């Protein structure tokens, strides 16, 4: 089983619901976003770009690309970043020493650091006292490695886990479920009959920074709507 995702850019309206669902389900501290949506070319989200009167406005969601050749994992000195048996790149929050080499290595800017204690950060920013959001419990992989905890330890790196706490139960990641436009499809890339595999075969998907040889398992279907 190799879990992967297909993102149909034709359908994306740039509403950022996936980013919000991700943020709250995964209890991300203030200023940390595992999942981002931007309008390529624009300095503000949802500002049109173009020239000669021909404007366009696409949206591009980016979270961990779940590389088959993950630079972040190779540089990790303590083996805190690893790929599980489903091909998901995860971080062991109890193993990470906080050297941030992986942040330098990742070409996608998805890795984020706990510069301060998340609890203190929430307090400082002024989140309502006692208000806790997100999946409320620790989640450990089958080897007992801590890959999700509502309040991350200070000084460790975090990023998208494909919602390991849900996918291990056979459920879909929060961004997939939270998308109103059904932009995201999630499934097994090894199964030729899965919806993701079929779409990848049919639609000639794009992968981000493919030239770096990272071999991501997140595939994008290019927006096909023509501008004339």
């Amino acid at each position, binding site marked *: 089983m190799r879990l992967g995702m297909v993102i149909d850019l034709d359908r994306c309206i740039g509403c950022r619901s996936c980013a919000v669902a991700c943020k709250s389900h995964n209890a991300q501290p*203030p*200023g940390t976003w595992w999942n981002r949506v931007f309008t390529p070319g624009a300095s503000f989200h949802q500002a049109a770009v173009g020239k000669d009167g021909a404007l366009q406005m696409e949206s591009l969601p980016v979270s961990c690309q779940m590389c088959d050749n993950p*630079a972040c994992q190779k540089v990790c000195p303590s*083996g805190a970043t690893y790929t599980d048996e489903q091909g998901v790149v995860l971080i062991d929050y109890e193993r990470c*020493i906080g050297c941030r080499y992986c942040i*330098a290595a990742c070409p996608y*800017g998805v890795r984020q650091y706990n510069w301060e204690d998340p609890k203190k950060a929430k307090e400082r920013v002024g989140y309502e006292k006692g208000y806790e959001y997100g999946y409320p419990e620790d989640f450990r992989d089958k080897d007992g490695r801590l890959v999700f905890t509502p309040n991350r330890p200070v000084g*460790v790196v975090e990023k998208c886990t494909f919602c390991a706490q849900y996918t291990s139960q056979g459920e879909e990641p929060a961004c997939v479920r939270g998308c109103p436009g059904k932009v995201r499809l999630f499934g097994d890339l090894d199964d030729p009959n899965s919806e993701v595999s079929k779409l990848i075969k049919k639609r000639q998907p794009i992968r981000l920074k493919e030239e770096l040889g990272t071999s991501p398992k997140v595939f994008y279907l290019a927006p096909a709507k023509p501008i004339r």
Partner: protein
Amino acid sequence: MKKSNLILGLAGVLILISLIAWGYQINKGLIVTNMRNPFSWGLYIATFAFFVGVAAGGLIISSSVYLFNIEKLKPFTRIASLSAFASILGAGAMIFPDMGRVDRVWNIFVYPNFKSPLVWDVVVISAYLLITFLSVYVQLLPDWKKEGRGFLNGWTKSHPQEYVEAFSKKWSKRVALVGLPVAILIHTVTALIFATQESRGWWNTAVLPPDFVSVAIASGTAFVLVIALLAVGKDQFEQYKEAFQRMALIVAGALVVHFFFVSVDLLIHGWWGSPEGKEVLSLIFSHYGFLYGTELLLPAFTMVFFLTKKGKNSFNALIIGSLLLFIGVFAHRLMLMYPAFNSIPLTLAIPGAGIESWAYPVAIGQLQEGVPVFVSSWAYTPSLVEYAVALLPFGLLVFVVTLALKMYNYVPQK
């Protein structure tokens, strides 16, 4: 004697300040630095790389005595080894405050990932620390025997002085020869930490490791030169003049090679004319022009200066030339960070809009009034806490060198 006590006290103060600042940082988190997600390595890693660079000198001087028979440098092999030991100790110490979870650093030893250049660096730097220590130790053994002091030398009691002298001579040579490849390796591997990263165009070049070696030979030799000058003093300058001139020549020669590498590197970054290449060049020449100018011009001055008669004929000229070089090399280490982090790896071309390069914004990792959460570049300047913490290796180096010079004789009298 009094002077050295004053220096030891000052070094102690530096160490104390940095430890207090580090304690504060451990308590608050790395939020007290000005690093953020888009700019995740800063002054600490630059300082680390700087100290790795100056650590080269020791074994380069001592092994060149044996390899190329440069007898004139022989009086300074002890100082060279000592300076190398002190610098690599400083470099090693600098790494720890950069770790967000310094309490878990042992994970590198329990679960090492041998694909990581950082693990290679831990191995070679530890080896170099050991080798430079041994190098100082075996060279001091005969003196210790004569004077009946020292440490870890109980075994020499049962041997005659001649035996210890011969042992010291034989093993100094062996350690120096084994140490030379390790000295080359610490720069190569430290450079590989950066050079292996294809996501960062500024680093991802095969010229980085050899260039690190050339800069290290220059700054490491200059460092030995400075300590040797200070240890010998102005009065005895003439006596050792030829050795100092030889070191100045090594510095200048290594800088010639360095500038050759820099030119080739810049040419390759620029020639193809890709948006990534153009961005890097605009970052180094315009946005960070001052820093890059410092990196280029100061060492260039030292190179030329040390090739002239005036530059290598006086105590003061050699000190000034070396100090300018250190500033330039420190700027070089900082410039490893700026163009690398402020050229966001995930850039896209949007042909329909006539845009060749658009950087996908990165979340900074902090929510604060007046600061955007998503940025395409981060104007990093070290915070006061970072400056304070980064005093650690400087304090350690000054402390160790001064203490060692005070305790034992590092310039053998003929």
